[in-house]
């Protein structure tokens, strides 16, 4: 019984972690940007979904639609207002641009946090679940929303896989991540590809934010922790590696769940952080990283 409970809870939380970190690793893989405002994107989407779905009373689905739209808008704002101006700046030396992007997105994350806490307060809220009620799964009582969350996450992950591996657009994204200069020489417009990947990132972050918000609640105060956990998962899996991110999300999700059940819920974050430090020592490129 306990084993099944751990399996179900671990699966749900790990899938959410994977979805939450996927956009982060995608945007790094394709455009080399470590977006430290990542948690901000997730929380903005969740907050807007809550505002439209609950406060305005338009229901879970319209709320979710508005949340995804908010994710895209915030991702575009991050790219067009923060990242691109720094990348194109002639004042900042080329070799320092990455550091400036890092700092810029960090500050943007703080701005998003302050703005959200000003508008919505920092008291947590929950996004309306897409599916209310509970399911008795082999004797384990589990909220139906947990299943739908896992299902949606896997559908989204599958769609992304198809997009990257089976479409022309996906091939361009892959090429941009491997050799952007080569792609430009072949006549592709890199800026258009970057714009596209930021839109995809916005959709992914929007969906992840809404699902996280309905499962664990959301608040502007969660932004740094959400960025931190996506960062940990991505570093553990290997920066820019999508399969590594998936694998690391499940490793972290299950270690946390096991700790919470078998040791103490207060210590759930500790073993995963220890593992992260060990990986940094022994295998700095991450579990499935190339470099």
């Amino acid at each position, binding site marked *: 019984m306990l084993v099944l*409970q751990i399996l179900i809870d671990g699966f749900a939380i790990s899938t959410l972690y994977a979805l939450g970190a996927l956009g982060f690793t995608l945007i790094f893989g394709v455009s080399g940007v470590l977006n430290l405002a990542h948690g901000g994107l997730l929380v903005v989407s969740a907050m807007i979904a809550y505002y439209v779905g609950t406060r305005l009373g338009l229901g879970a689905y319209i709320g979710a639609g508005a949340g995804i739209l908010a994710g895209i808008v915030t991702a575009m704002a991050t790219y067009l207002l923060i990242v691109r101006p720094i990348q194109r700046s002639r004042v900042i030396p080329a070799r320092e641009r990455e550091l400036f992007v890092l700092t810029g997105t960090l500050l943007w994350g703080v701005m998003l946090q302050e703005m959200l806490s000003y508008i919505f307060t920092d008291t947590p809220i929950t996004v309306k679940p897409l599916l209310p009620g509970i399911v008795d799964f082999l004797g384990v009582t589990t909220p139906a929303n947990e299943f739908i969350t896992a299902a949606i996450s896997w559908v989204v992950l599958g769609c992304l896989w198809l997009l990257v591996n089976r479409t022309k657009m996906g091939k361009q994204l892959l090429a941009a991540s491997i050799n952007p200069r080569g792609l430009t020489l072949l006549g592709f417009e890199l800026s258009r590809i970057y714009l596209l990947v930021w839109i995809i990132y916005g959709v992914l972050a929007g969906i992840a934010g809404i699902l996280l918000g309905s499962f664990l609640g959301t608040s502007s105060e969660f932004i740094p922790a959400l960025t931190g956990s996506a960062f940990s998962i991505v570093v553990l899996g290997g920066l820019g590696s999508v399969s590594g991110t998936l694998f690391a999300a499940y490793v972290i999700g299950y270690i946390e769940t096991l700790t919470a059940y078998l040791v103490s819920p207060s210590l*759930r974050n500790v073993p995963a952080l220890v593992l992260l430090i060990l990986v940094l020592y022994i295998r700095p490129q991450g579990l499935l990283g190339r470099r």
Partner: protein
Amino acid sequence: MNLKGFIAARSIRAGLLASAATMLVGFAGWAVSPAQAADPIKIGITTELATIPGKAIANGAELAADQINAAGGIDGRQIQLVIEDDHLSSTDAVSSFQRMVKEDHVVAVVGTFVSEVGLALEPWSARLHEPYLITGAAANQLSQFVHKDYARNKYIFHAYLPAAFLAQAVCDASHDILVNQFHMKTAVILSEDAAWTQPLDAGYQGCLPKAGLTVEKEIRFSPDTTDFTPIYQQLASLNPNVIIAGWAHVGVQPTVQWNTQHVPIALAGINAQAGSSQFWQATNGGTEGVITGNVAAPGVAITPKTLPFSDAYQKKFGYSPAYSAYTTYDAMYMLKDAIERAKSTNALPLVAALEKTDMVGTQGRLEFLGQSSQFTHALRYGPGYVTGVAIQWQSGQQKTIWPLNLANAKAEFPSFVKLPKMAAN
């Protein structure tokens, strides 16, 4: 940028004050009335403005100041509030406390709803001889600090109930409702790990058995916890009748997860965020059936002042007051009353007058405990004074279920909660 903005704001304020002073001299230079009589009485408000209870402190103070000023002020002098955001940080709170005392010359500082921040401000209140009324935090140590060294720390007043009294109120309500009406026998204490819940849990451990509930386990969790599933699974295997909570930093997540996971155990105790009217929306209705202790409740006239206050608050801010709005509003009137009796805004006479406070506020009859009590300068708890109420969320509304003489509804639980009576059938 922050600093610049702050300096600019201060300069503007100073500029306005200077212009006002010049105008006063210009127009009334020849008049005999001393300018001092018209000087505003400044009161500092220290709180965190981005949280519901924190904002409620500022709101409660503003409403009281508006009403007092409209009625002619304190002995003809208007109240001027200096509201500073402590960002829930002790460091920010201490520096803003010092600024309010040294630069703004406030006669007293009111506010704080996090005990850790209150404990950091107390030594500064003592050092600067500045009356400080804590209106939202609950740790026992806040008033025990005054008891330990009265001569030095007498400037501090805990204008709210210490955790020990909050625990007693929960036990009293549990006895009348859960034990007498629902025949509950077992409880699990589930508290966030924070300064205020240590004495609260100790209080629960002491008084719940006397109220008729055996404590099967005490679980403390980190306030950062977001997934409560493992805790609820553990609780379900213990199968107690009720969870007695000690939550203020958390609230939404454990409540929603209790509901969505259909945890078959009643949820009561103190779930501070559930005291806010916005909690229903924040939890998407997941708070249905949740019981929490609160200072007061909508529509319940604890005293003749309760309803006029909550109505005026609703009208001014568009939502109902959180617990800390009641306490802060009362603290402002206690200050007014003390200044009028002391005929002074100096610290020592003000402290002496505050100690003699005996007035009816929105929460009950207000009196501070004396030097002999271990909770020196905390509000007196008990029938006839302040007891608080127990409210339960029923169909989107906060209903009062305790004290029984004020109750406007009977307790009822969601169908997924297994009640002892039902189990016996």
